[in-house]
């Protein structure tokens, strides 16, 4: 940079480029301010801070004369920080919590949910005349209290007195700010009306108003009461007192717990579960072994087949060489998920092409027998992966130094000797980094496993939905419960993600160091 880098960056002239920049930043700022305000009203302070920081960084980068490189880095960096760095860090955090079903939220939300879930109609409590009202699409109730005060509220807004209501025969007929629903409209939304609960006050201990017939409201209060001072939950029907325990649940003296908990840090518990708990440790060990076997065999088999074909077609005298090459790489040009789905049909036990046509109607359980399913997965991955290896081996073969090969020939080396001592080592040096990334890719080849076998056939003994062809990443998916087949356990799933990361990172680091020393020798 022989000239000062400030030239041009802080232009004050109204060039078209400057105007475009100004317009873009104005747009970003407008969206940013909107997001900041939205975060403010949602009381989401972490997001608020992040948005403000990003917004300030953007304005600094594009208006400061000293921030030249950041003008180019910032757009990508912002996405990287939010959707990669943050989520990785958050994965690390969740791995040490019990986040999942039963531990979904904060303690305050858990207390509120417990109180709401245990609401019962208070025996003998007074009923009050009730009218169903609406604010836009939001339903609410308006009731007339025994003292004759009209109060109204919705699911999110507790009852509050409203002035200026017209009341006929103890029933509200018009209410400022609300629309009184006709009988027909109430019938239409019957389910919503009977499900609606309008809190009596901000304190969930006070209970709520509910209705069965849209005409009379009853006060429901919770059979549990929460005492903030002693931080205990008491069941008023049985008199049992629950105190918070270390697992993020309310626990009674006899060890019974209330169903809704909150998330807390549980230290290494998730890792202990993966390696030690009898429900997970058995499947986890098998899956870990199979993941390694799958990744290693996949790389080896695709590499060998690809290399063999590359050698076969690497002869300038071969006619139709380009046609062979183009047709052979076709599987690689098909999106991986389509290939896996296609093969799952081809290998279908009763109707598939392979059994029906190639094996003359034999019912070979390609995808449902533990051993055959593993072979099928490897076979399909061979079909999917060999063209890639073919491409890189062809590239490497064509860039072999001709003089070395010629020297070997002059020295009297035969075909095999040349191949073994010269071609193969040089080829390995050129392709080793790609073999490592191929290993890392197959280690996490979720699409293939999930689309072809879904991880099945299931382990007989496992209470968790895992199977013989599951690899670690598909185990993470099952354990996370996001597909709806098992209870959600984000904590354990994140812990397993961390394990995968450690395995892949270690292997890549070691392998890359090895290949570097290989290169130095060559």
């Amino acid at each position, binding site marked *: 940079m022989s000239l000062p880098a400030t030239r041009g960056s802080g232009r004050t002239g109204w060039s078209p*480029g400057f105007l475009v920049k100004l317009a873009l930043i104005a747009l970003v700022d407008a969206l940013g301010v909107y997001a900041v305000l939205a975060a403010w009203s949602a009381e989401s302070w972490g997001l608020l801070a992040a948005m403000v920081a990003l917004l300030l960084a953007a304005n600094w980068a594009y208006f400061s004369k000293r921030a030249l490189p950041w003008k180019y880095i910032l757009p990508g960096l912002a*996405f990287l920080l*939010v959707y990669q760095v943050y989520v990785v860090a958050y994965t690390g955090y969740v791995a040490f919590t019990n986040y999942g079903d039963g531990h979904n939220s904060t303690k305050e939300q858990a207390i509120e949910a417990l109180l709401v879930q245990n609401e019962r109609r208070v025996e003998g409590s007074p009923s009050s005349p009730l009218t169903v009202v609406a604010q836009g699409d939001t339903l609410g109730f308006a009731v007339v209290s025994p003292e004759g005060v009209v109060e109204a509220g919705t699911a999110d807004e507790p009852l509050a007195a409203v002035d200026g209501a017209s009341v006929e025969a103890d029933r509200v007929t018009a209410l400022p700010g609300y629309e009184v629903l006709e009988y027909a409209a109430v019938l239409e939304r019957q389910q919503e009306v009977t499900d609606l609960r309008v809190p009596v006050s901000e304190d969930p201990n006070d209970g709520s108003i509910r209705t069965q017939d849209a005409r009379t409201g009853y006060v429901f209060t919770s059979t549990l009461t929460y005492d903030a001072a002693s931080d205990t939950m008491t069941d008023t029907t049985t008199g049992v007192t629950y105190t918070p325990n270390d697992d993020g649940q309310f626990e009674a003296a006899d060890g019974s717990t209330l169903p809704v908990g909150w998330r807390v840090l549980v230290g290494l518990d998730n890792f202990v579960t993966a390696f030690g708990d009898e429900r997970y440790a058995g499947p986890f060990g098998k899956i870990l072994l199979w993941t390694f076997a799958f990744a290693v065999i996949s790389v080896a088999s695709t590499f060998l087949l690809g290399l063999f074909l590359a050698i076969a077609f690497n002869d300038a*005298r071969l006619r139709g060489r380009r046609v062979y090459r183009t047709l052979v790489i076709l599987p690689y040009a098909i*999106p991986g998920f389509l290939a896996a789905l296609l093969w799952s049909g081809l290998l279908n036990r009763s109707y598939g092409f392979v059994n029906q046509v190639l094996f003359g109607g034999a019912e070979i359980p390609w995808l449902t027998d533990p051993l055959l399913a593993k072979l099928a997965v490897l076979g399909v991955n061979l079909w999917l992966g060999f063209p890639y290896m073919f491409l890189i081996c062809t*590239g490497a073969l064509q860039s072999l130094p001709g003089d070395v090969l010629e020297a070997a020939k002059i020295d009297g080396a035969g075909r095999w000797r040349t191949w073994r001592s010269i071609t193969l080592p040089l080829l390995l040096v050129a392709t080793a980094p790609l073999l490592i990334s191929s290993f890392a890719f197959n280690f996490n080849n979720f*699409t293939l496993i999930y689309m072809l076998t879904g991880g099945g056939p299931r382990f007989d003994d496992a209470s968790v939905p895992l199977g013989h062809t599951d690899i670690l*990443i598909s185990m*993470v998916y099952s354990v996370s419960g996001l597909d709806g087949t098992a209870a959600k356990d984000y904590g354990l799933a994140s812990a397993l993600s961390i394990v995968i990361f450690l395995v892949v990172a270690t292997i890549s680091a070691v392998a890359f160091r090895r290949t570097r020393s290989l290169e130095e020798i060559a």
Partner: protein
Amino acid sequence: MSTTIPPARPAAPPRRTALPRRVTPARWFSDLGWRHLVGVLAIVYAGFPLVYVVSASLADAGTLTGSNELFASVSGANYVALGGTKFWTWMGNTLVVAVATGAGTVLMGAAAAYAFSRFRFSGRRVGLTALLVIQMFPQMLAFVAIFLLCISLGNVVPVLGLDSKLSLICVYLGGALGVNTFLMYGFFNTVPREIDEAAKIDGASHAQIYWTIVLRLTAPILAVVGLLSFIATFGEFIIARVLLQSEENWTIAVGLYGWVSSLQEANWGLFTAGAVVSALPVLALFLFLQKYIVGGLTAGSVKG
């Protein structure tokens, strides 16, 4: 091929490549013939599932059993039936997401690579090392955290929440810098710096140099990165599956998986027709730009 040399003319003048001995069939086979044999076998192996899928998509039965006889019937019924499903919506979604991700990846990756390659600033070395470390952690491993992040973002800005294509694009763009900056950085370094300095002396601003000089000269690598990103996004499944919940927003991968996993036997015709249609854009791009892609592959990227 060499067998075509007529044996009646043994005294043909020896050329540079002329074979010293007469070509017997055995000799021909060990030299070239086995290569043809391997080639034919490889084509059958690589091609038969593709022939099958085309045939099945044209079968009028539309079931798995009915597709086993290759080209027993040829009709466009399955393709017409696609119109009665959400297939074209999914296709549109996928193209929107993949094109936006590809374009965004190229723009942001190239800008970052330009900065790292052309400017010297504090934090440059740390930044490059950090990128190397970050790219070891594949984004898909963090899908649980991504899901949770999108829930909280959605509470504040709904369009960045679950079940939104924009949100999915943002997530994919988060992986853009980590994967591709190094590929581009290496290429940008091969463009001689004297070119930008000459332009600078002529009065060009850094933005003019970037947009009109550097981007033009690095077009091949931009094409590779955009294309690989397009293809990877096109086939990405796990994050799309976790984030997109309503059928209108699904991508092709999520939608077709739904057909096959729910009723493989009955939906087979639809699936195969859908597979042929959705494989075409990728296949076409791939075959036309094969040369570029192979160059990119040997530089170290893996297709999904």
